[in-house]
């Protein structure tokens, strides 16, 4: 039993060491910048409410290593470490005088977004529904998204997993319309306390459309209508109306 215990202890120690050294690898990451604003305020933490404990003067060099939302963790040459807001670094330059552009979540970033993650709720054929999706933008007009929807009805619950393609003909418009085409599978689960019926799986074809509104920063608001056609083995296919609204973030 004893050697096995040693092995476990050794494994634990190895695990702990690898865990502790993990951030060590990231240490050489980062960029050096020169502050060109009159000054930059350094906070003790990544938030406006954290106190300012140091002011970086114009011309000083900062090493930026980390980012948390709009805040950058910076170290001065004298070894002061704190968090600086992106707005204060807007006009910084690199050591060779090159321009540095910090990605900011704004309208321009919204236009060039790659990933989109959203949640929403609404009505799925009259019952409450929740949905979440992950979208990938291939061009400014075309994107694809993987969407999971769950609906809670009085007689049955449904789960829908679908892959959609979105076309945004006018991505520059303030309220931008889009059209969806998709396909997926739906599982309908009758409530166990009503009748003992089988759950059923169906393929689904989806046509829909809606509007995207850019709110601010990395937020967008989205309203959508979908018409799902359930391909059943019975004589007629079923149609399901779905309305939903939700918000998304992009990154």
């Amino acid at each position, binding site marked *: 039993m004893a050697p096995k215990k040693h092995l476990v202890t050794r494994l634990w120690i190895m695990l702990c060491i690898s865990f502790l050294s993990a951030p060590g690898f990231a240490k050489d*990451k980062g960029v050096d910048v020169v502050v060109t604003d009159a000054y930059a305020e350094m906070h003790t933490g990544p938030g406006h409410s954290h106190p300012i404990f140091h002011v970086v003067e114009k011309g000083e060099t900062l090493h930026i290593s980390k980012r948390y*939302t709009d*805040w950058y963790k910076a170290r001065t040459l004298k070894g002061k470490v704190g968090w600086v807001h992106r707005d204060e670094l807007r006009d910084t330059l690199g050591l060779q005088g090159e321009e540095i552009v910090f990605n900011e979540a704004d309208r321009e970033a919204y236009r060039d977004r790659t990933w989109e*993650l959203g949640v929403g709720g609404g009505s799925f054929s009259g019952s409450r529904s929740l949905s979440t999706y992950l979208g990938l933008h291939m061009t400014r007009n075309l994107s694809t998204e993987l969407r999971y929807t769950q609906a809670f009805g009085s007689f049955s619950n449904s789960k829908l997993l679908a892959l959609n393609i979105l076309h945004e003909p006018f991505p520059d418009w303030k309220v931008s319309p889009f059209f969806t085409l998709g396909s997926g599978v739906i599982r309908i689960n009758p409530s166990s306390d009503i009748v003992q019926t089988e759950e059923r799986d169906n393929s689904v074809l989806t046509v829909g459309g809606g509007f995207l509104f850019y709110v601010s920063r990395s937020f967008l608001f989205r309203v959508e209508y979908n018409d799902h056609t359930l391909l059943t083995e019975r004589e007629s296919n079923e149609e399901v109306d779905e309305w939903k609204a939700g918000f998304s973030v992009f990154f």
Partner: protein
Amino acid sequence: MEGRFQRIFLIALTVFLAQGALAQDAQESDGQTVLDAVINPDIEPRNIDEDLIDSENFEAGIFAGVMSVEDFGSNNVFGVRLAYHVTEDLFLELASGQTSTTETSYETLSGGSPLLTDAQRTLTYYNVSLGWNLLPGEVYLGKYAFNTSYYIIGGAGNTMFADNEYFTYNFGGGFRMALTDWVAFRLDFRNHLFTHNILGDDKSIQNLETHLGLSLFF
């Protein structure tokens, strides 16, 4: 240090101007103005790749605690979560937890047949919530300062219990303490609300949960 940078800058500027002056002779014949040759910078503006800066907006964690499911006892709960910090104030969180409920007091007292099978007694939930960091601050332990925040959180999701699924709202609050930039400790209080009819009639129940968790930021 600052003096050295000024010197380097001045040397760079001198070399730069000298080059401009040399180029001037060559370019004047091309019909370009003297001014253009002096002002046009040699150095191309270069955008620095921001991928060099580690962004820590995602949070992944595990938690363990106690969840009281109305009528079905207070039991251990375990779960995982993934969060995305949108701004310093707002975050989006996906969480999932599981608890094994025990017999209702009726089942225990009457000694009758159990209402649910063991498999049906397992309650699993997942939810999507929006959190708001309400009171950011710091705590001091000895000479160390740790960033903290109190937050409120609320959302909706799904509860799987007794062979059925229920639309569930959740709301609550919590406390987050960052031990380093990439590890945080969390304490959460949540209420999960849903309506079931396991005991005959529709019944809206409140299920309180409290848990401790550890999160990694990446």
